[in-house]
């Protein structure tokens, strides 16, 4: 199973409308992505909390349809 980059971006933006999202399809196989998400929502949160927020936005796809998503999150500087 795989997931399109556009679907990942849509789910993240639904949850974090202000987010700047960039997604790279690392292997070109629709299964290994790297995503950077920059949103005010992350300010003051620990890295674990920030990543959990993104995983939550992906509605359980992470670890399922989405095998590998290298994630980088931060609040705007």
């Amino acid at each position, binding site marked *: 199973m795989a997931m399109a980059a556009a679907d990942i971006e849509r789910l993240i933006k639904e949850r974090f409308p202000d987010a700047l999202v960039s997604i790279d399809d690392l292997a070109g196989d629709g299964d290994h992505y790297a995503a950077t998400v920059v949103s005010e929502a992350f300010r003051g949160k620990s890295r*674990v909390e920030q990543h959990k927020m993104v*995983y939550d936005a992906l509605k359980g796809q992470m670890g399922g349809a989405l095998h590998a998503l*290298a994630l980088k999150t931060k609040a705007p500087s």
Partner: protein
Amino acid sequence: MSAQEVQDWISKQVASNDVVLFMKGTKEMPQCGFSMQVAQILNHLGVDFKDINVLDDVSVRDGIKAYSNWPTIPQLYVKGEFIGGCDIVREMFQAGELQELLSAKGITHNAQTLTA
């Protein structure tokens, strides 16, 4: 093991080992690139850690995700606290924060930072 027994077993591992890595494969032979990265970082820092191979037991593989409410493996625990998965551990290592955290928690390690 029942789901509750698995949670109890995981709690015991996390409580009785200062540094625990739930990973795919072993520290000698990781079977996933993400698990390998975290094991390499810990080895590089000379940290003595217990590796738990989730591929040995599907109930542990599922149980650890429920334990931390975290969907992926590897998962690193230091003194009972969930630190993160591969991305977070790598980011913390590169920023020197992992070394600081280990020092703050009294875990022996060498003070190497990223070179090259």
